[in-house]
């Protein structure tokens, strides 16, 4: 058990933790409004011009980008260990890491494209 320490783990954990905080603070209200309240028709959804103006604001886009990237890293890190331990496939560790962190990277790039094009 004396392989050299992988210096990347502490940074992954910090990003995972930061993502955990942002996901806990921001995501429930987003899903509550656009996924549950508006579709169920209790309150009417925001009109297009208003929402567009809000989404196009530079500050909104920066905040959403940070929330998206860190939340995706949070997913990647947690999902990696859940799969490794839950399915007991430690020998596939590298493959699982590539899938998880690779997925987070692809998702982050998609977020960048979407936010730039608003």
């Amino acid at each position, binding site marked *: 058990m004396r392989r050299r320490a992988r210096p990347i783990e502490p940074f992954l954990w910090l990003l995972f933790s930061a993502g955990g905080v942002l996901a806990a603070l921001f995501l429930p*209200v987003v899903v509550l409004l656009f996924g549950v309240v508006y*579709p169920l028709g209790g309150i*009417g959804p925001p009109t297009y011009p208003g*929402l567009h103006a809000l989404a196009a604001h530079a500050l909104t886009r920066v905040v959403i980008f940070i929330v998206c990237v860190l*939340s995706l890293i949070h*997913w990647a890190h947690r999902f990696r*260990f*859940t799969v490794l331990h839950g399915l007991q496939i430690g020998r596939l560790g590298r493959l699982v890491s590539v899938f998880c962190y690779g997925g987070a990277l692809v998702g982050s790039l998609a977020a960048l494209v979407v936010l730039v*094009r608003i």
Partner: protein
Amino acid sequence: MTATRARAYRQAVPRLWWLRRRSYLLFMLRELSCVFVAWAVLFLLLLLKAVGNGHVDYQRFLDWAAKPWVIAVNVLALAFLVFHSVTWFNLAPKAMVVRVPKQMLALAPKAIVRRLPEGRVPGWLIVAQNYVAWVFVAAIVAGLVMRSGS
């Protein structure tokens, strides 16, 4: 000695070990909340993509989000996201030990200092701060979104 050791019986971990105990299952559900974190990000990006494409696409997104299966997924996602928030906020003081600076301890009234175990901010206060921050962020986001539409 070696002969005995060679015959030691290895207790295998059951494949579905996380179904064996309530606490393991709750742990597994907590960890699986990350799947719904990813879903929430995807859902948010789909919304923003539609907003970027114009009002026709925005209406199409609203119609899609109103499909029963999408609502069902989002209700489930909301439950898991709230579970994530609650577990995350409650466990935060385990990792964070916040010490009150010595100078502040000297200034604070004795009655308060006596209540701080080893000059630390008590765990419940950190948890309470998390919930205050949660309500604050949710109110701001909901306020901005609702105000933008009227």
